[in-house]
């Protein structure tokens, strides 16, 4: 990019190829494995603690609408994925509620930051609660996890509750852990949705 002054200009996004989609389908299956994670497959305690701290921070930053810091929780080559089916199918063949690479995730944040995103006026307040988190070792420098979630959302003075389970792939980049993939499985993914223009 020649425009080095502006941080909001987009970058090219070249990583989402067929092999990456295959990897997503592999994760999709992995997140749905049976039974408790055997001790032998559990990640090192320090990695597990780091990933848990990241998952909690990501949820809190979304709730607090600190969206630039929230984006920093995601790896440069990440996918944010809300399937429109339950269970999720192959996103190459079926539409999702949202499926973003890092670039389109930045678009989502930039839209809200224009101040004229009417779906977020008044601002939607949310609180994420994560529970039942299970971790296991993925590839080298990868930790996978799944958790149940509840999101309480307040919009136009009314509460509503979203719930489901979330699948994570965390990867280590330099010294830091980042979210590589987050798949949000709403229990009503294939039913009527309300205004979900905050981050799940």
């Amino acid at each position, binding site marked *: 990019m020649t425009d080095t002054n502006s941080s*909001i200009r987009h970058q090219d996004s070249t990583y989402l190829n067929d092999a990456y989609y295959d990897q997503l389908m592999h994760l999709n299956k992995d997140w749905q494995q049976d039974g408790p994670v055997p001790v032998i497959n559990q990640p090192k305690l320090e990695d597990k603690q780091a990933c848990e701290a990241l998952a909690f921070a990501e949820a809190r930053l979304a709730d607090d609408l600190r969206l630039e810091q929230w984006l920093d929780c995601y790896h440069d080559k990440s996918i944010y994925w809300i399937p429109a089916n339950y269970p999720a199918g192959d996103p190459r*063949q079926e539409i999702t509620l949202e499926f973003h*690479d890092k670039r389109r995730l930045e*678009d989502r944040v930039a839209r809200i930051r224009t101040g004229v995103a009417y779906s977020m006026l008044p601002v939607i307040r949310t609180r994420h609660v994560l529970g039942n988190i299970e971790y296991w070792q993925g590839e080298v420098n990868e930790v996978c996890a799944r958790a149940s979630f509840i999101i309480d959302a307040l919009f136009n003075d009314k509460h509503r509750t979203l719930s489901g389970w979330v699948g994570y792939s965390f990867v280590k980049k330099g010294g830091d852990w980042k979210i590589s993939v987050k798949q949000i499985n709403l229990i009503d993914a294939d039913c009527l*949705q309300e205004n979900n223009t905050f981050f799940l």
Partner: protein
Amino acid sequence: MKELDNLVQAGRIHRTVYTDERIFSVEQQKVFSETWVYLAHASEIKEPNSFVARKMGLRSVIVTRDKENKIHALLNRCTHRGATVCREKKGDKTPFFTCPYHGWTFRNTGECAAIPHQDAYGENLDKQTFNLKKVPFVSEYRGFVFATLNSEKGKKGIKDHLKSAANRIDEWIDHNGGDHRAIRISGAQQYTVHANWKCLYDNAGDGYHPEFSHQSLLQMTQQRYGAGMDLDYFSGGIDSTPMYSQSLGNGHSFLDQRPCMYENSAFERQRPQPGREAIVEQLTNEVGETKAKAFFEMATGAGMNINIFPNLLFIGNQMQVITPLSVGLSDMTWYSTAVDNVPELVNTLRIRTQEDFTAFGEPDDTANFEACFKGMQEREVDWIDISRHLGRKEDSVGEGGTVTSVISSDIHMRTYYEEWKKLMQSKDNSPLS
């Protein structure tokens, strides 16, 4: 409903047309029965003995394909005690539906096949009197399945009702590759809108709003991707662009964005989809630049808004179906489409493109529909204005009675309200009523 002469006027609509429960109730008979209502796409029930559960207005309907490939719309109400017979959203290999309550069983043609322990009803019971009721007329136009309860319209078939809209659907299908590349449904995004269904329908042909409602999309795109991108041709003097709006007869209408969107490449205007670069590279290598470029345009929206009154809207490569749930609550479902006989990468790009507007455009539209419906509750302010470009002298009448106006005209609302009023004031003409 004589009162509608006062409530629906040339350039304005009374707010109670949107808010009155009584009018909503009459609409269920007159609009969502006595005209052709879109139900499903043939690709959703491709195999014999498959089905999908749908709504026809408030009615629960099972759309089936029988073993002879004939499509039926069965009222999903057991003729015994009233229970919902089919409780699944879709299925295949289903020649029969059995009511879970007392086991009454019906063929996917609606015919009553079995009544358990039938002897207790006497020797002369004619099972046929207990067939599932059917929407009497089902008709398909190029894969789009419609139904009506109206005898007169039913006998003429859907094509007669579509009038000039049929030509526009043909053009839409051509954009998507024509007959040798049939489209299929590739999933759906479903949303509630807290507004009367007509608040959604009003917007379907509104070329006036994008410059204002879609500021978040326009500003974000300008900041991140510069000028000349998606929808930016809706800013400024839009009525001097070659885009136009058109009434097609029978309440149907059309907005043509193609003269601007496809002036050069629509694909180049599209905000970059996830995976765009990888797919462009791979597809260009596989099929060559010329063929690949044609596929990229096919993966981009058609630039046509075709509105089939009362519930089917073609937007981009998607079909939006509007279903009323109550006077102030509506179901807005976006069906995604994929294309047969193309490299699957084309469909992946196409599906990623179809996720764009529902994330960046529709949420702001929905916020405004809901705000309108809220405002319509105010008893002190009576009217909804639809007079933009009313009586414009340059509007031209074309073949089949179409009327063409500028892109920001309210002709879409005026033409559908004309049809709406006609239907609402018509005599019942249904064999089921």
